């Protein structure tokens, strides 16, 4: 029966091609959009997830997420340090500054770190070393920021940049994971950062805990002792992502596109397959008259659907995989973007749903068709 089912399917080249392409298009659209959305949302927390040595983030109760930094009193640092289980706690500044170079006057993000522990600093270096941030009035910049500020120039350390009217010297170029906000990233030691922003207050306090402590328990202890918000890095990353999910139009936009991909796939495939079964109804009826059972016909139909879905999905997902293999290398907006396995899985489930629906809707017709009808 399987062989017969396949012969009947491929005999209708037009429809089987339309269904394969419909599924492929739907797969590509859903997988590509879902993956971009996934990576984009993850990027909102990329500063947090990239800061791997940080166990706990202490933040202002008025600040909900990374890009909305608070302003913490200096004295808080000592209160945090006095909590048992804290190995060390350092200030972390996230501010916005104006960068002024011969061909570039723009906003940039300033990140002030503790140059001794380097807690919260990016790990991947392109040029120089973050140890150099121990000096004052020096900075490091991210690779992409460098080419925004000095387009088409080779990386040269030692050059100067006006940041909020402070002349800073470049000592390192780093390669952090893509942030959600695509402005140059200026890294300095925290004292330089205080000077440049004119604000002596840390935005966050980063905590490294002693071995054997757990971040959840210690966060609670810090929060209780200080009255400030303290949460493990994972939780802070999650609440940052959640903030963007809740408070921006990004999820709904992607959601609409993904649903559109689903609906188009469903409409094309269900309709084409229904037409295919309708055109073959007499043939199925003949088989029914000859004693084929409803279950046999259902199996034939499901096999046809599975094949169309399998081929279409493979084409579509290959297209999406190719996109994420090539495009992020050349388009900086997509840097670091990839196709997560969750997207593979969920797209596969969606396509399975589409083809099952198309198959089951269509087979109803054949099942209801009375065998006596072929004689009339």
């Amino acid at each position, binding site marked *: 029966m399987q062989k*017969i089912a396949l012969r009947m399917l491929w005999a209708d080249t037009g429809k089987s091609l339309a269904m394969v392409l419909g599924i492929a298009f739907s797969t590509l659209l859903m997988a590509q959009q879902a993956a971009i959305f996934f990576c984009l949302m993850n990027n909102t927390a990329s500063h947090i997830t990239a800061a791997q040595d940080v166990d706990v983030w202490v933040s202002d109760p008025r600040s909900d997420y990374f890009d909305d930094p608070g302003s913490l009193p200096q004295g808080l640092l000592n209160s945090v340090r006095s909590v048992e289980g804290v190995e060390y706690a350092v200030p972390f500044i996230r501010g916005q500054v104006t960068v002024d170079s011969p061909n570039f006057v723009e906003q940039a993000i300033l990140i002030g770190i503790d140059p001794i522990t380097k807690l919260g600093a990016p790990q991947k270096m392109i040029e120089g070393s973050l140890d150099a941030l121990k000096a004052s009035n020096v900075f490091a910049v991210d690779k992409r920021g460098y080419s925004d500020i000095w387009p088409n120039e080779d990386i040269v350390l030692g050059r100067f940049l006006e940041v909020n009217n402070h002349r800073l010297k470049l000592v390192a170029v780093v390669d952090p994971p893509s942030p959600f906000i695509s402005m140059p990233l200026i890294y300095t030691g925290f004292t330089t950062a205080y000077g440049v922003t004119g604000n002596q207050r840390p935005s966050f306090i980063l905590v490294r805990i002693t071995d054997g402590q757990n971040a959840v328990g210690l966060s609670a202890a810090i929060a209780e002792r200080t009255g400030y918000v303290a949460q493990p890095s994972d939780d802070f990353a999650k609440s940052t992502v959640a903030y963007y999910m809740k408070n921006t139009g990004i999820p709904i936009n992607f959601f609409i596109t993904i649903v559109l991909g689903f609906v188009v796939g469903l409409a094309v495939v269900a309709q084409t397959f229904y037409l295919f079964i309708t055109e073959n109804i007499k*043939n199925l009826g003949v088989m029914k008259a000859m004693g084929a059972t409803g279950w046999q016909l259902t199996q034939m139909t499901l096999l046809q659907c599975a094949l169309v879905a399998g081929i279409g999905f493979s084409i579509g997902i290959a297209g999406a995989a190719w996109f994420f293999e090539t495009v992020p290398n050349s388009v900086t907006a997509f840097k670091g973007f990839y196709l997560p396995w969750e997207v593979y899985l969920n797209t596969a489930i969606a396509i399975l749903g589409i083809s099952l629906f198309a198959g089951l809707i269509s087979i109803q017709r054949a099942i209801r068709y009375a065998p006596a009808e072929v004689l009339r």
Partner: protein
Amino acid sequence: MEAAISCNNLVKSFGKGSSSQTVLNGINLDLSAGELTIIAGPSGSGKTTLLSILACTLRPTSGFAEVFGQNIAQLTNAQMARLRRHDVGFIFQQYNLIPALTAAENAAIPLIIAGAPYDKAVEAGRRVLGKFDLTEHSHKYPRQMSGGQQQRVAVARALIHKPRLVICDEPTAALDAKSGETVMQILSDIAASKNRLVIVVTHDHRIFHHADRLVEMNDGNIVSNPDQHNYARIA
């Protein structure tokens, strides 16, 4: 001889209530294996309906119809399908071959439905086609064959699983006289030599002489049901 098919006061109506139409009006009929029976009669007289019941594709409204010892009215859909799968061969006016399949594949369908492996079934299909002089056509698709050739493929398909009952609705209506004669010759041969029961519904007077028995219907009734072998003499 023991009747292979037996109908007693068989009634079939379609629709319900006032719009109900009685199409078979108390049919009594016994048919035995080894006979080719022709059912004739004007259009709308209920021939196809009777044939559908005897082929186990339709249940009677009332009365009794027994096919190879099974009471049709009491069978489930699955039991009816099983009976058709093993004991009934079908030949249609419009051949009803599956266009996507070759002649050999078409002929093999009943075996495949019954669960035979594809390759074996198609091989058997080729062998059966050989018996009807279609060997060189076994790779052809229906659209590449004449009507007569297609109907012979359909005959091969109806016989491949050696059913005890072969039912044919207007098998020659779409054929020229010579092709129709060939098909009827095959059918009357298998009725006689293989002890099968062949039932042919037809308007086509040219083929009446093949009948071992000619049953004439009118308005849901059998109006003439002469004894076996009588018709040939009358004709």
